């Protein structure tokens, strides 16, 4: 047994209250180890997206602690240090959105080099070289100079994945990356996600893609009413869940 290392992502007792009393997350914990792929499932409104967005502070947790690759922020933290910590976590975290959110005024390549150049001050030549490598990796070399409006949804999402990989993140967050896609385009995006998992990326994905959950995830976690109902290996969750709520939910989406 080697020395136990810190988990890559650790969230402790995360609460999120919207407005004056909409309690969306109630004390959520998670630990995700390096190289692990975790899929979060749950009915809409269960808080799974909100939780994912709390990890990189797109949604600010009302209480609790987030830790990503040894950068720790407490929800109550204020001031300059907090801003630095948030930026620090975001620099280590890639995120893909349901609506892709590519920058429409930039070509595929420009989208990918934007982060390395603006955020990390990388040299343009070097950024372009790596971006071309990434485009090749997601199979879109020939779309290098196209604007997003000329790409299909699946292609856009693959560029978005390449974009978030450009900064060499430690963790990838996927927020329903295939929900806005036509059914025949889902495969190409899931395929890229699978290869990413195989290459050892730490992944937390909110998705309804059960095929991905079953074949790729190391762990499946079910959320309901703002906290976990149950977690386990895909075999366990899909074949023999402990909780009635899990069974109901799976019956709905299977």
């Amino acid at each position, binding site marked *: 047994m080697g020395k136990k290392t810190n988990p890559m992502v650790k969230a402790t007792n995360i609460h999120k209250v919207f407005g004056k009393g909409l309690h969306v997350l109630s004390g959520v914990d998670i630990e995700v180890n390096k190289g692990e792929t975790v899929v979060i499932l749950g009915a809409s409104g269960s808080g799974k997206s909100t939780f994912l967005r709390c990890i*990189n502070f797109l949604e600010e947790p009302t209480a609790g602690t987030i830790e990503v690759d040894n950068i720790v922020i407490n929800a109550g933290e204020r001031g300059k240090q907090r801003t630095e910590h948030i930026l620090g976590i*975001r*620099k280590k975290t890639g*995120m893909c959105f349901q609506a892709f*959110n590519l920058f429409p005024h930039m070509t595929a390549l420009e989208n990918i080099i934007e982060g390395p150049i603006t955020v990390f001050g990388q040299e343009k030549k070097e950024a372009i070289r790596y971006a071309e490598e990434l485009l090749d990796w997601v199979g879109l070399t020939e779309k290098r100079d196209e604007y997003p409006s000329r790409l299909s949804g699946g292609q856009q999402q693959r560029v978005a994945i390449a974009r978030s990989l450009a900064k060499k993140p430690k963790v990838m967050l996927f927020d329903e990356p295939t929900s806005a896609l036509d059914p025949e385009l889902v495969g190409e995006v899931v395929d890229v996600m699978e290869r990413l998992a195989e290459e050892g990326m730490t992944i937390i994905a909110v998705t309804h893609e059960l095929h991905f959950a079953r074949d790729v995830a190391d762990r499946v976690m079910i959320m309901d009413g703002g906290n976990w109902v149950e977690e386990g290996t895909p075999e366990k969750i899909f074949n023999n869940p402990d909780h009635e709520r899990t069974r109901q939910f799976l019956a709905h989406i299977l």
Partner: protein
Amino acid sequence: MTADINQPEKIGIPKEARTILKRIEADKTIYSRKLMISFFVLAVLMVTSLIVLGLDFKFMLKWLPFIIAGSGYTFLVAFLAISLACVLSVIGALGRLSRNPVINSIATTYVSLIRGTPLLVQVYMWYLALPQIGKALEGYGFTGIQAWFTLPALPAGILALGVCYGAYMTETVRAGIQSINIGQTEAAKAMGMTGFQTMKRVIFPQAIRVIIPPVSNEFIAMIKDSSLVSLMGVWELSYRAIKVGRRHFQSLEMLIMVALIYWAMCILLQYFQEKIEKHMARGDRGI
């Protein structure tokens, strides 16, 4: 992809569809021809009415160079004022969106105050009332400040127009910034960008496309409002026309001439506006 109807056989369009497509195309040609004729008739009518009115064209031609010489001032005032307005409107919009209460309140008051008072009053304020403020300040011991507060006509006019249009354009720019989907901000933030980087690299370049048409509109309006500086005796277009017209009791000729010159200038600007918009539309589908 749109089918090329001139070569329908290539893409297997049936014969009866081809007839209909041809008729649609012919209708389009007829319409644009009729439109051209209408415009032409309208132009002829306008020219004839000028002749019927018995305008003294010789007189107009004689004074044309003198009047046109004033367009330099008009362009100078409008161009400098719109530049000032652009800078103010970006600062103003960021102020209006700011979470800092001091900055936000200043920006909001600026927009409210300037939009709520007539431009005419503002022009006089900069030109006639500002020196009085300078005098008052001098009384409080700021020696030498009155000279700074006494503006010549041209700078006063540029400031008045620039500050006024800046307030209107602040709201245009703010609306443009707010029209950009929240997902763009989120993507930029998730990338690790600071608020400033997000604004500069992601939001503003997209907002500018939304903002350009209304701003061009403001510029065209500004060309005409620049005639207000004539109130302070700047020899720009309309001032010259009015002066000459009054002196020779031929105001009609002069006013019609100056109106046509303004119109021509605005048509020119509109042409450039369309060019810029086309350039800005890159990244849109089908370009």
